Protein backbone atom coordinates (compact mmCIF):
# COMPACT_ATOMS: atom_id res chain seq x y z
CA UNK A 1 0.00 0.00 0.00
CA UNK A 2 1.17 3.49 -0.81
CA UNK A 3 -0.33 6.69 0.56
CA UNK A 4 0.41 9.79 -1.37
CA UNK A 5 -0.65 12.81 -3.33
CA UNK A 6 -1.43 11.96 -6.94
CA UNK A 7 -1.65 14.57 -9.70
CA UNK A 8 -4.83 14.60 -11.75
CA UNK A 9 -3.72 14.59 -15.39
CA UNK A 10 -7.07 13.79 -17.00
CA UNK A 11 -10.63 14.04 -15.80
CA UNK A 12 -13.37 13.47 -18.32
CA UNK A 13 -17.00 12.58 -18.53
CA UNK A 14 -17.67 9.25 -20.25
CA UNK A 15 -21.46 9.14 -19.98
CA UNK A 16 -24.13 11.16 -18.23
CA UNK A 17 -22.87 10.19 -14.77
CA UNK A 18 -19.69 8.17 -15.31
CA UNK A 19 -16.27 9.84 -15.23
CA UNK A 20 -12.71 8.80 -15.92
CA UNK A 21 -10.00 10.16 -13.64
CA UNK A 22 -6.38 9.59 -14.56
CA UNK A 23 -3.73 10.36 -11.97
CA UNK A 24 0.02 10.34 -11.97
CA UNK A 25 2.23 9.02 -9.18
CA UNK A 26 3.77 5.98 -7.56
CA UNK A 27 2.14 2.77 -8.82
CA UNK A 28 4.70 0.37 -7.41
CA UNK A 29 2.30 -0.96 -4.81
CA UNK A 30 -0.19 -2.17 -7.42
CA UNK A 31 0.46 -5.85 -7.91
CA UNK A 32 -2.61 -7.12 -9.75
CA UNK A 33 -5.64 -6.00 -11.66
CA UNK A 34 -8.78 -5.81 -9.53
CA UNK A 35 -7.09 -3.90 -6.74
CA UNK A 36 -8.51 -0.56 -5.68
CA UNK A 37 -7.58 2.87 -4.37
CA UNK A 38 -9.20 4.77 -1.51
CA UNK A 39 -9.73 8.43 -2.29
CA UNK A 40 -9.81 11.31 0.16
CA UNK A 41 -12.45 13.82 -0.89
CA UNK A 42 -12.46 17.22 0.74
CA UNK A 43 -15.19 17.73 3.38
CA UNK A 44 -15.95 13.98 3.59
CA UNK A 45 -14.75 12.00 6.55
CA UNK A 46 -14.33 8.60 4.95
CA UNK A 47 -12.40 7.84 1.79
CA UNK A 48 -14.15 6.48 -1.30
CA UNK A 49 -13.00 3.11 -2.68
CA UNK A 50 -12.69 2.97 -6.48
CA UNK A 51 -11.26 0.09 -8.48
CA UNK A 52 -8.14 0.55 -10.54
CA UNK A 53 -9.34 0.33 -14.11
CA UNK A 54 -5.91 0.50 -15.66
CA UNK A 55 -2.38 1.41 -14.63
CA UNK A 56 1.18 1.54 -15.87
CA UNK A 57 4.53 2.62 -14.47
CA UNK A 58 3.29 6.00 -13.28
CA UNK A 59 -0.40 6.48 -14.03
CA UNK A 60 -3.62 5.07 -12.65
CA UNK A 61 -6.93 5.21 -14.42
CA UNK A 62 -10.14 5.21 -12.40
CA UNK A 63 -13.70 5.13 -13.65
CA UNK A 64 -16.46 6.13 -11.30
CA UNK A 65 -20.16 6.74 -11.31
CA UNK A 66 -21.79 9.60 -9.46
CA UNK A 67 -24.09 7.98 -6.92
CA UNK A 68 -23.96 10.30 -3.93
CA UNK A 69 -22.43 13.42 -2.48
CA UNK A 70 -18.83 12.22 -2.40
CA UNK A 71 -18.61 11.16 -6.01
CA UNK A 72 -20.52 14.32 -6.96
CA UNK A 73 -17.88 16.43 -5.19
CA UNK A 74 -15.15 14.48 -6.96
CA UNK A 75 -16.44 15.56 -10.36
CA UNK A 76 -15.40 19.12 -9.49
CA UNK A 77 -11.73 18.20 -9.09
CA UNK A 78 -9.83 19.80 -11.92
CA UNK A 79 -6.84 18.57 -13.86
CA UNK A 80 -3.67 19.82 -12.20
CA UNK A 81 -5.03 19.32 -8.71
CA UNK A 82 -3.50 16.80 -6.34
CA UNK A 83 -5.53 14.16 -4.59
CA UNK A 84 -4.68 11.97 -1.60
CA UNK A 85 -4.93 8.24 -2.36
CA UNK A 86 -4.25 4.96 -0.66
CA UNK A 87 -3.08 2.83 -3.57
CA UNK A 88 -2.79 -0.91 -4.06
CA UNK A 89 -5.57 -2.09 -1.76
CA UNK A 90 -7.31 -5.46 -2.05
CA UNK A 91 -6.07 -8.79 -3.27
CA UNK A 92 -6.83 -8.36 -6.96
CA UNK A 93 -7.57 -11.01 -9.58
CA UNK A 94 -5.46 -14.11 -9.78
CA UNK A 95 -4.69 -14.53 -13.47
CA UNK A 96 -2.46 -17.56 -13.03
CA UNK A 97 -5.36 -19.98 -12.63
CA UNK A 98 -5.38 -22.80 -15.11
CA UNK A 99 -7.88 -21.85 -17.79
CA UNK A 100 -7.83 -21.09 -21.48
CA UNK A 101 -11.01 -19.33 -22.39
CA UNK A 102 -12.19 -17.28 -19.44
CA UNK A 103 -15.34 -15.23 -19.55
CA UNK A 104 -14.92 -11.68 -18.25
CA UNK A 105 -18.32 -10.40 -17.18
CA UNK A 106 -18.93 -6.89 -15.96
CA UNK A 107 -22.03 -4.94 -15.07
CA UNK A 108 -22.18 -1.14 -14.80
CA UNK A 109 -19.43 0.30 -12.63
CA UNK A 110 -18.20 -3.24 -12.04
CA UNK A 111 -16.72 -3.06 -15.52
CA UNK A 112 -13.70 -0.75 -14.94
CA UNK A 113 -11.35 -3.21 -13.18
CA UNK A 114 -11.97 -5.77 -15.94
CA UNK A 115 -10.07 -3.66 -18.46
CA UNK A 116 -6.67 -4.19 -16.88
CA UNK A 117 -7.69 -7.76 -16.04
CA UNK A 118 -8.38 -8.48 -19.70
CA UNK A 119 -4.99 -7.04 -20.66
CA UNK A 120 -3.32 -9.28 -18.09
CA UNK A 121 -5.19 -12.34 -19.30
CA UNK A 122 -4.09 -11.62 -22.86
CA UNK A 123 -0.48 -11.24 -21.73
CA UNK A 124 -0.76 -14.61 -20.04
CA UNK A 125 -1.99 -16.17 -23.27
CA UNK A 126 -5.56 -16.77 -22.21
CA UNK A 127 -8.34 -16.05 -24.66
CA UNK A 128 -10.88 -14.01 -22.74
CA UNK A 129 -14.32 -13.17 -24.03
CA UNK A 130 -15.66 -9.96 -22.52
CA UNK A 131 -19.33 -9.39 -21.75
CA UNK A 132 -20.22 -5.93 -20.56
CA UNK A 133 -23.73 -5.21 -19.38
CA UNK A 134 -25.61 -1.93 -19.25
CA UNK A 135 -29.16 -0.73 -18.86
CA UNK A 136 -29.27 1.23 -22.04
CA UNK A 137 -27.15 2.44 -24.96
CA UNK A 138 -26.38 5.86 -23.48
CA UNK A 139 -24.72 4.27 -20.47
CA UNK A 140 -22.13 2.33 -22.44
CA UNK A 141 -18.50 3.10 -21.66
CA UNK A 142 -15.12 1.39 -22.14
CA UNK A 143 -16.44 -0.53 -25.17
CA UNK A 144 -13.79 0.82 -27.52
CA UNK A 145 -11.03 0.24 -25.02
CA UNK A 146 -11.99 -3.42 -24.74
CA UNK A 147 -12.45 -3.73 -28.50
CA UNK A 148 -9.00 -2.34 -29.17
CA UNK A 149 -7.47 -5.20 -27.20
CA UNK A 150 -8.51 -7.52 -30.00
CA UNK A 151 -10.78 -9.73 -27.93
CA UNK A 152 -14.43 -10.61 -28.47
CA UNK A 153 -16.61 -8.08 -26.70
CA UNK A 154 -20.32 -8.68 -26.24
CA UNK A 155 -22.50 -5.84 -25.06
CA UNK A 156 -25.88 -6.30 -23.46
CA UNK A 157 -28.47 -3.67 -22.65
CA UNK A 158 -31.54 -4.35 -20.60
CA UNK A 159 -33.72 -2.35 -22.97
CA UNK A 160 -32.12 -3.76 -26.10
CA UNK A 161 -31.05 -0.35 -27.35
CA UNK A 162 -27.60 -1.73 -28.17
CA UNK A 163 -26.12 -5.22 -28.57
CA UNK A 164 -27.88 -8.17 -27.04
CA UNK A 165 -31.16 -7.36 -25.31
CA UNK A 166 -31.18 -8.60 -21.73
CA UNK A 167 -28.45 -9.78 -19.40
CA UNK A 168 -25.05 -11.47 -19.53
CA UNK A 169 -26.80 -14.83 -19.76
CA UNK A 170 -28.59 -13.80 -22.93
CA UNK A 171 -25.25 -12.88 -24.46
CA UNK A 172 -23.82 -16.29 -23.59
CA UNK A 173 -26.88 -18.01 -25.00
CA UNK A 174 -27.04 -16.00 -28.20
CA UNK A 175 -23.37 -16.18 -29.01
CA UNK A 176 -22.88 -19.76 -27.90
CA UNK A 177 -19.37 -18.93 -26.70
CA UNK A 178 -17.35 -21.63 -24.99
CA UNK A 179 -15.62 -20.87 -21.69
CA UNK A 180 -13.82 -22.72 -18.94
CA UNK A 181 -13.61 -20.03 -16.21
CA UNK A 182 -14.98 -16.64 -15.32
CA UNK A 183 -14.04 -13.35 -13.73
CA UNK A 184 -16.82 -11.02 -12.71
CA UNK A 185 -17.57 -7.72 -11.04
CA UNK A 186 -20.89 -5.94 -10.95
CA UNK A 187 -24.22 -5.62 -9.13
CA UNK A 188 -24.90 -8.18 -6.42
CA UNK A 189 -27.88 -9.67 -8.25
CA UNK A 190 -25.68 -10.37 -11.27
CA UNK A 191 -22.93 -11.92 -9.16
CA UNK A 192 -25.41 -14.21 -7.44
CA UNK A 193 -26.88 -15.27 -10.73
CA UNK A 194 -23.49 -16.00 -12.26
CA UNK A 195 -22.42 -17.93 -9.21
CA UNK A 196 -25.48 -20.13 -9.24
CA UNK A 197 -25.83 -20.49 -13.01
CA UNK A 198 -22.41 -20.96 -14.55
CA UNK A 199 -21.06 -24.46 -14.14
CA UNK A 200 -17.40 -23.48 -14.23
CA UNK A 201 -15.26 -21.98 -11.49
CA UNK A 202 -14.45 -18.31 -11.34
CA UNK A 203 -13.51 -15.27 -9.31
CA UNK A 204 -16.02 -12.79 -7.97
CA UNK A 205 -15.31 -9.23 -6.88
CA UNK A 206 -17.29 -7.87 -3.93
CA UNK A 207 -18.23 -4.47 -2.54
CA UNK A 208 -19.02 -3.37 0.98
CA UNK A 209 -19.17 -0.10 2.92
CA UNK A 210 -15.69 0.46 4.25
CA UNK A 211 -14.18 2.25 7.21
CA UNK A 212 -10.55 1.97 6.20
CA UNK A 213 -9.99 -0.17 3.10
CA UNK A 214 -6.90 -1.91 4.41
CA UNK A 215 -8.09 -4.34 7.08
CA UNK A 216 -7.99 -2.13 10.17
CA UNK A 217 -11.61 -1.79 11.22
CA UNK A 218 -13.47 -5.04 10.46
CA UNK A 219 -16.19 -2.89 8.98
CA UNK A 220 -16.47 -4.84 5.74
CA UNK A 221 -16.55 -8.46 6.81
CA UNK A 222 -18.47 -11.12 4.98
CA UNK A 223 -18.76 -14.83 5.43
CA UNK A 224 -17.14 -17.28 3.05
CA UNK A 225 -16.88 -21.04 3.09
CA UNK A 226 -13.38 -20.69 4.50
CA UNK A 227 -14.47 -18.35 7.28
CA UNK A 228 -14.80 -14.63 7.76
CA UNK A 229 -13.05 -12.42 5.24
CA UNK A 230 -12.75 -8.68 4.92
CA UNK A 231 -13.92 -7.37 1.57
CA UNK A 232 -11.17 -4.76 1.60
CA UNK A 233 -8.36 -7.29 1.87
CA UNK A 234 -10.15 -10.16 0.12
CA UNK A 235 -12.12 -8.22 -2.43
CA UNK A 236 -12.02 -11.04 -4.90
CA UNK A 237 -13.07 -14.50 -3.84
CA UNK A 238 -12.90 -17.81 -5.64
CA UNK A 239 -16.37 -18.97 -6.58
CA UNK A 240 -16.06 -22.16 -4.58
CA UNK A 241 -15.53 -20.15 -1.40
CA UNK A 242 -18.38 -17.75 -1.95
CA UNK A 243 -21.43 -17.80 0.30
CA UNK A 244 -24.43 -15.67 -0.59
CA UNK A 245 -27.03 -15.27 2.08
Amino acid at each position, binding site marked *: *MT*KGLYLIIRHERLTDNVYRLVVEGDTSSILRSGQFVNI*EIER*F*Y*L*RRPISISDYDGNTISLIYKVVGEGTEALTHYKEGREIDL*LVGLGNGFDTDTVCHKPLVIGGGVGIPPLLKLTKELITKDKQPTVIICFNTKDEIFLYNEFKSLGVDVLVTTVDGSYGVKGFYSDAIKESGIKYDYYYTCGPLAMLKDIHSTLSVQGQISFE*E*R*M*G*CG*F*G*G*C*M*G*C*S*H*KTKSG*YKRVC*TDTIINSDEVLFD
Partner: protein
Amino acid sequence: MNIKTELCGLPLDNPIIPASGTFGFGQEYKDFYDLNILGSISIKGTTREARFGNPTPRIAECKAGMLNAVGLQNPGVKAVVDIELPELKKIYLKPIVANVCGFSLDEYVEVAQLMSEVENVGWIELNVSCPNVKHGGMSFGTDACCAAEVTSAVKAVSKKPVIVKLSPNVTDITEIALACQEAGADGLCLINTLLGMRLDLKNRKPLLANVTGGFSGDAVFPIALRMIYQTAKVCKIPIIGCGGVSTARDVIEMMMAGASAVQVGSANLINPFASKEIIEAMPKEMKKLGIQNLTDIIGVAL
Protein backbone atom coordinates in the same frame (compact mmCIF):
# COMPACT_ATOMS: atom_id res chain seq x y z
CA MET B 1 11.35 18.06 24.67
CA ASN B 2 10.33 15.01 26.68
CA ILE B 3 7.28 13.13 25.42
CA LYS B 4 7.45 10.24 27.86
CA THR B 5 4.54 9.55 30.17
CA GLU B 6 3.28 6.85 32.50
CA LEU B 7 0.15 4.75 32.81
CA CYS B 8 -0.73 2.95 36.03
CA GLY B 9 2.92 2.70 37.00
CA LEU B 10 4.16 1.48 33.63
CA PRO B 11 6.26 3.89 31.56
CA LEU B 12 5.18 4.89 28.04
CA ASP B 13 7.66 6.26 25.49
CA ASN B 14 4.91 8.62 24.44
CA PRO B 15 1.19 9.00 25.17
CA ILE B 16 -0.10 7.74 21.79
CA ILE B 17 -2.00 4.45 21.77
CA PRO B 18 -4.06 3.35 18.74
CA ALA B 19 -7.58 2.74 20.07
CA SER B 20 -9.21 -0.65 20.23
CA GLY B 21 -11.03 -1.70 17.09
CA THR B 22 -9.14 0.64 14.80
CA PHE B 23 -5.82 -1.19 14.76
CA GLY B 24 -6.84 -4.86 14.60
CA PHE B 25 -4.10 -6.89 16.26
CA GLY B 26 -1.43 -4.69 14.72
CA GLN B 27 -0.73 -6.81 11.64
CA GLU B 28 -2.62 -4.58 9.22
CA TYR B 29 -0.35 -1.64 10.03
CA LYS B 30 3.02 -3.33 10.28
CA ASP B 31 3.94 -2.72 6.64
CA PHE B 32 3.05 0.96 6.91
CA TYR B 33 5.58 1.83 9.61
CA ASP B 34 7.59 0.37 12.47
CA LEU B 35 4.98 -0.02 15.19
CA ASN B 36 7.59 0.34 17.91
CA ILE B 37 7.25 4.10 17.65
CA LEU B 38 3.85 3.76 19.40
CA GLY B 39 3.39 4.30 23.14
CA SER B 40 1.29 1.15 23.23
CA ILE B 41 -1.41 -0.57 21.15
CA SER B 42 -4.95 -1.38 22.26
CA ILE B 43 -6.08 -4.53 20.50
CA LYS B 44 -9.52 -5.30 19.09
CA GLY B 45 -12.13 -6.04 21.77
CA THR B 46 -11.96 -9.71 22.63
CA THR B 47 -14.69 -12.01 23.88
CA ARG B 48 -14.68 -15.61 25.09
CA GLU B 49 -15.99 -17.12 21.86
CA ALA B 50 -15.09 -16.14 18.31
CA ARG B 51 -17.64 -13.68 16.90
CA PHE B 52 -18.52 -12.59 13.39
CA GLY B 53 -20.23 -9.53 14.76
CA ASN B 54 -23.18 -7.77 13.18
CA PRO B 55 -24.43 -8.10 9.62
CA THR B 56 -23.26 -5.51 7.09
CA PRO B 57 -23.49 -2.61 6.35
CA ARG B 58 -21.59 -1.94 9.53
CA ILE B 59 -20.10 1.42 8.59
CA ALA B 60 -21.77 4.74 7.85
CA GLU B 61 -20.31 8.13 7.20
CA CYS B 62 -21.20 11.28 9.11
CA LYS B 63 -20.08 14.87 8.87
CA ALA B 64 -16.71 14.86 10.64
CA GLY B 65 -17.04 11.31 11.84
CA MET B 66 -18.31 7.81 11.26
CA LEU B 67 -20.61 5.18 12.70
CA ASN B 68 -19.54 1.61 13.20
CA ALA B 69 -21.61 -1.37 14.22
CA VAL B 70 -18.95 -4.00 13.89
CA GLY B 71 -20.28 -5.75 16.97
CA LEU B 72 -17.04 -7.06 18.37
CA GLN B 73 -15.87 -9.30 15.56
CA ASN B 74 -12.90 -11.18 17.00
CA PRO B 75 -11.41 -14.66 16.92
CA GLY B 76 -12.14 -15.35 20.61
CA VAL B 77 -9.79 -15.15 23.56
CA LYS B 78 -8.06 -18.46 22.91
CA ALA B 79 -6.99 -17.51 19.41
CA VAL B 80 -5.99 -14.06 20.64
CA VAL B 81 -3.83 -15.45 23.41
CA ASP B 82 -2.36 -18.31 21.38
CA ILE B 83 -1.93 -16.63 17.99
CA GLU B 84 -2.59 -12.90 17.80
CA LEU B 85 -0.61 -11.76 20.84
CA PRO B 86 2.46 -13.88 20.07
CA GLU B 87 2.35 -12.63 16.46
CA LEU B 88 2.04 -9.07 17.66
CA LYS B 89 4.97 -9.58 19.99
CA LYS B 90 7.20 -10.34 17.03
CA ILE B 91 6.63 -6.91 15.56
CA TYR B 92 5.86 -4.83 18.65
CA LEU B 93 8.15 -5.17 21.61
CA LYS B 94 6.32 -3.13 24.27
CA PRO B 95 3.41 -4.04 26.55
CA ILE B 96 0.01 -3.77 24.90
CA VAL B 97 -3.49 -2.93 26.12
CA ALA B 98 -5.85 -5.91 26.05
CA ASN B 99 -9.39 -4.72 25.35
CA VAL B 100 -11.79 -7.17 26.97
CA CYS B 101 -15.50 -7.47 26.41
CA GLY B 102 -18.20 -9.81 27.59
CA PHE B 103 -21.87 -10.63 27.71
CA SER B 104 -21.84 -11.65 31.33
CA LEU B 105 -19.82 -11.02 34.44
CA ASP B 106 -18.30 -14.49 34.11
CA GLU B 107 -17.19 -13.86 30.59
CA TYR B 108 -15.45 -10.59 31.51
CA VAL B 109 -13.68 -12.33 34.37
CA GLU B 110 -12.60 -15.31 32.33
CA VAL B 111 -11.35 -13.32 29.35
CA ALA B 112 -9.57 -10.77 31.53
CA GLN B 113 -7.88 -13.44 33.58
CA LEU B 114 -6.58 -15.27 30.52
CA MET B 115 -5.39 -12.04 28.95
CA SER B 116 -3.69 -10.81 32.10
CA GLU B 117 -1.51 -13.88 32.13
CA VAL B 118 -0.01 -13.09 28.74
CA GLU B 119 3.41 -11.58 29.06
CA ASN B 120 3.12 -8.73 26.58
CA VAL B 121 -0.22 -7.59 28.01
CA GLY B 122 0.56 -4.49 30.06
CA TRP B 123 -2.97 -3.44 30.93
CA ILE B 124 -6.46 -4.87 30.84
CA GLU B 125 -8.90 -2.45 29.24
CA LEU B 126 -12.35 -3.42 30.41
CA ASN B 127 -14.75 -2.42 27.67
CA VAL B 128 -18.05 -1.90 29.47
CA SER B 129 -19.14 0.48 26.76
CA CYS B 130 -19.57 -1.23 23.40
CA PRO B 131 -22.84 0.15 22.03
CA ASN B 132 -23.06 -2.42 19.25
CA VAL B 133 -23.96 -5.60 21.05
CA LYS B 134 -27.21 -6.47 22.73
CA HIS B 135 -27.19 -7.71 26.33
CA GLY B 136 -23.69 -6.88 27.38
CA GLY B 137 -21.22 -4.27 26.38
CA MET B 138 -22.65 -0.86 27.03
CA SER B 139 -25.32 -2.04 29.44
CA PHE B 140 -22.52 -2.72 31.93
CA GLY B 141 -21.20 0.78 31.46
CA THR B 142 -24.35 2.84 31.83
CA ASP B 143 -25.11 1.74 35.36
CA ALA B 144 -22.73 2.57 38.18
CA CYS B 145 -23.44 -0.61 40.12
CA CYS B 146 -22.89 -2.92 37.14
CA ALA B 147 -19.70 -1.11 36.22
CA ALA B 148 -18.41 -1.39 39.77
CA GLU B 149 -19.37 -5.04 40.01
CA VAL B 150 -17.55 -6.08 36.86
CA THR B 151 -14.56 -3.94 37.83
CA SER B 152 -14.06 -5.56 41.19
CA ALA B 153 -14.65 -9.04 39.83
CA VAL B 154 -12.00 -8.51 37.18
CA LYS B 155 -9.62 -6.83 39.61
CA ALA B 156 -9.83 -9.94 41.78
CA VAL B 157 -8.33 -12.10 39.04
CA SER B 158 -6.21 -9.77 36.95
CA LYS B 159 -2.47 -9.85 37.19
CA LYS B 160 -2.24 -6.56 35.33
CA PRO B 161 -3.61 -3.07 36.02
CA VAL B 162 -7.28 -2.81 35.09
CA ILE B 163 -8.43 0.22 33.11
CA VAL B 164 -12.18 0.58 32.69
CA LYS B 165 -13.30 2.02 29.37
CA LEU B 166 -16.43 4.06 29.94
CA SER B 167 -19.42 4.82 27.79
CA PRO B 168 -20.23 8.48 27.07
CA ASN B 169 -23.91 7.62 26.68
CA VAL B 170 -24.72 8.48 30.27
CA THR B 171 -26.21 11.36 32.21
CA ASP B 172 -23.33 11.67 34.65
CA ILE B 173 -19.96 10.21 33.73
CA THR B 174 -18.44 11.05 37.12
CA GLU B 175 -20.89 8.80 38.92
CA ILE B 176 -19.76 5.78 36.90
CA ALA B 177 -16.11 6.80 37.07
CA LEU B 178 -16.18 7.13 40.85
CA ALA B 179 -17.93 3.79 41.20
CA CYS B 180 -15.19 2.12 39.14
CA GLN B 181 -12.46 3.85 41.11
CA GLU B 182 -14.00 2.68 44.34
CA ALA B 183 -14.31 -0.83 42.98
CA GLY B 184 -10.56 -0.85 42.52
CA ALA B 185 -10.00 0.24 38.93
CA ASP B 186 -6.39 1.23 38.29
CA GLY B 187 -7.33 3.63 35.54
CA LEU B 188 -10.11 4.82 33.25
CA CYS B 189 -10.35 5.18 29.51
CA LEU B 190 -12.84 7.65 28.13
CA ILE B 191 -14.64 7.71 25.89
CA ASN B 192 -15.98 4.86 23.81
CA THR B 193 -18.32 5.75 20.95
CA LEU B 194 -21.52 7.78 21.23
CA LEU B 195 -24.68 6.09 20.08
CA GLY B 196 -25.61 7.48 16.68
CA MET B 197 -27.59 6.69 13.58
CA ARG B 198 -27.96 7.49 9.88
CA LEU B 199 -30.68 6.66 7.40
CA ASP B 200 -30.44 5.52 3.82
CA LEU B 201 -32.68 8.09 2.16
CA LYS B 202 -33.23 6.05 -0.98
CA ASN B 203 -34.41 2.97 0.90
CA ARG B 204 -36.01 5.00 3.68
CA LYS B 205 -34.52 2.85 6.40
CA PRO B 206 -31.57 2.79 8.77
CA LEU B 207 -28.28 2.62 6.93
CA LEU B 208 -26.68 0.18 9.34
CA ALA B 209 -28.05 -3.35 9.50
CA ASN B 210 -27.77 -2.96 13.28
CA VAL B 211 -29.92 0.23 13.10
CA THR B 212 -27.70 2.26 15.47
CA GLY B 213 -23.93 2.43 15.62
CA GLY B 214 -21.08 3.93 17.56
CA PHE B 215 -20.21 7.48 16.56
CA SER B 216 -16.52 8.40 16.55
CA GLY B 217 -14.06 10.72 14.86
CA ASP B 218 -13.38 14.47 14.87
CA ALA B 219 -16.95 15.34 15.82
CA VAL B 220 -16.86 13.76 19.28
CA PHE B 221 -13.75 15.53 20.57
CA PRO B 222 -15.46 18.30 22.63
CA ILE B 223 -17.67 15.74 24.37
CA ALA B 224 -14.72 13.47 25.14
CA LEU B 225 -12.72 16.42 26.43
CA ARG B 226 -15.53 17.52 28.73
CA MET B 227 -15.90 14.03 30.18
CA ILE B 228 -12.16 13.69 30.76
CA TYR B 229 -12.11 17.05 32.51
CA GLN B 230 -15.14 16.29 34.67
CA THR B 231 -13.74 12.89 35.60
CA ALA B 232 -10.22 14.13 36.29
CA LYS B 233 -11.71 16.70 38.65
CA VAL B 234 -13.10 14.00 40.91
CA CYS B 235 -11.01 10.86 40.34
CA LYS B 236 -7.45 10.15 41.44
CA ILE B 237 -6.68 7.26 39.08
CA PRO B 238 -5.06 7.96 35.71
CA ILE B 239 -7.16 8.54 32.61
CA ILE B 240 -6.58 7.54 29.00
CA GLY B 241 -8.23 10.17 26.83
CA CYS B 242 -9.94 8.99 23.66
CA GLY B 243 -12.38 10.39 21.13
CA GLY B 244 -11.82 12.48 18.03
CA VAL B 245 -8.08 12.88 18.39
CA SER B 246 -6.32 13.51 15.10
CA THR B 247 -3.54 16.00 15.82
CA ALA B 248 -0.76 16.61 18.33
CA ARG B 249 -2.72 19.64 19.56
CA ASP B 250 -5.67 17.39 20.36
CA VAL B 251 -3.33 15.18 22.40
CA ILE B 252 -2.05 18.18 24.33
CA GLU B 253 -5.58 19.46 24.92
CA MET B 254 -6.68 16.09 26.33
CA MET B 255 -3.63 15.88 28.56
CA MET B 256 -4.20 19.39 29.89
CA ALA B 257 -7.76 18.26 30.69
CA GLY B 258 -6.38 15.40 32.76
CA ALA B 259 -5.37 12.52 30.49
CA SER B 260 -2.12 10.65 31.18
CA ALA B 261 -2.18 8.98 27.76
CA VAL B 262 -4.29 9.38 24.64
CA GLN B 263 -5.83 6.90 22.22
CA VAL B 264 -6.21 7.60 18.53
CA GLY B 265 -9.06 5.70 16.90
CA SER B 266 -10.89 6.58 13.71
CA ALA B 267 -8.05 8.84 12.59
CA ASN B 268 -6.02 5.67 11.86
CA LEU B 269 -8.73 4.46 9.52
CA ILE B 270 -8.75 7.47 7.25
CA ASN B 271 -5.01 7.97 7.48
CA PRO B 272 -3.12 4.78 8.33
CA PHE B 273 -0.10 6.88 9.32
CA ALA B 274 -2.09 9.07 11.74
CA SER B 275 -0.68 7.71 15.02
CA LYS B 276 2.88 7.92 13.75
CA GLU B 277 2.42 11.43 12.38
CA ILE B 278 0.92 12.62 15.65
CA ILE B 279 3.86 11.27 17.65
CA GLU B 280 6.29 12.93 15.28
CA ALA B 281 4.45 16.25 15.53
CA MET B 282 4.44 16.31 19.34
CA PRO B 283 7.80 18.02 19.95
CA LYS B 284 7.05 20.85 17.53
CA GLU B 285 3.66 21.59 19.08
CA MET B 286 5.12 21.34 22.57
CA LYS B 287 7.77 23.85 21.62
CA LYS B 288 5.17 26.30 20.31
CA LEU B 289 3.34 26.06 23.61
CA GLY B 290 6.41 26.14 25.81
CA ILE B 291 6.00 22.61 27.13
CA GLN B 292 9.23 20.89 28.20
CA ASN B 293 7.91 17.69 29.75
CA LEU B 294 4.62 16.33 28.63
CA THR B 295 3.92 15.06 32.13
CA ASP B 296 4.00 18.67 33.37
CA ILE B 297 0.76 19.47 31.63
CA ILE B 298 -1.36 16.53 32.75
CA GLY B 299 -4.42 18.14 34.28
CA VAL B 300 -3.06 21.73 34.32
CA ALA B 301 -6.42 23.06 33.17
CA LEU B 302 -8.31 21.51 36.07
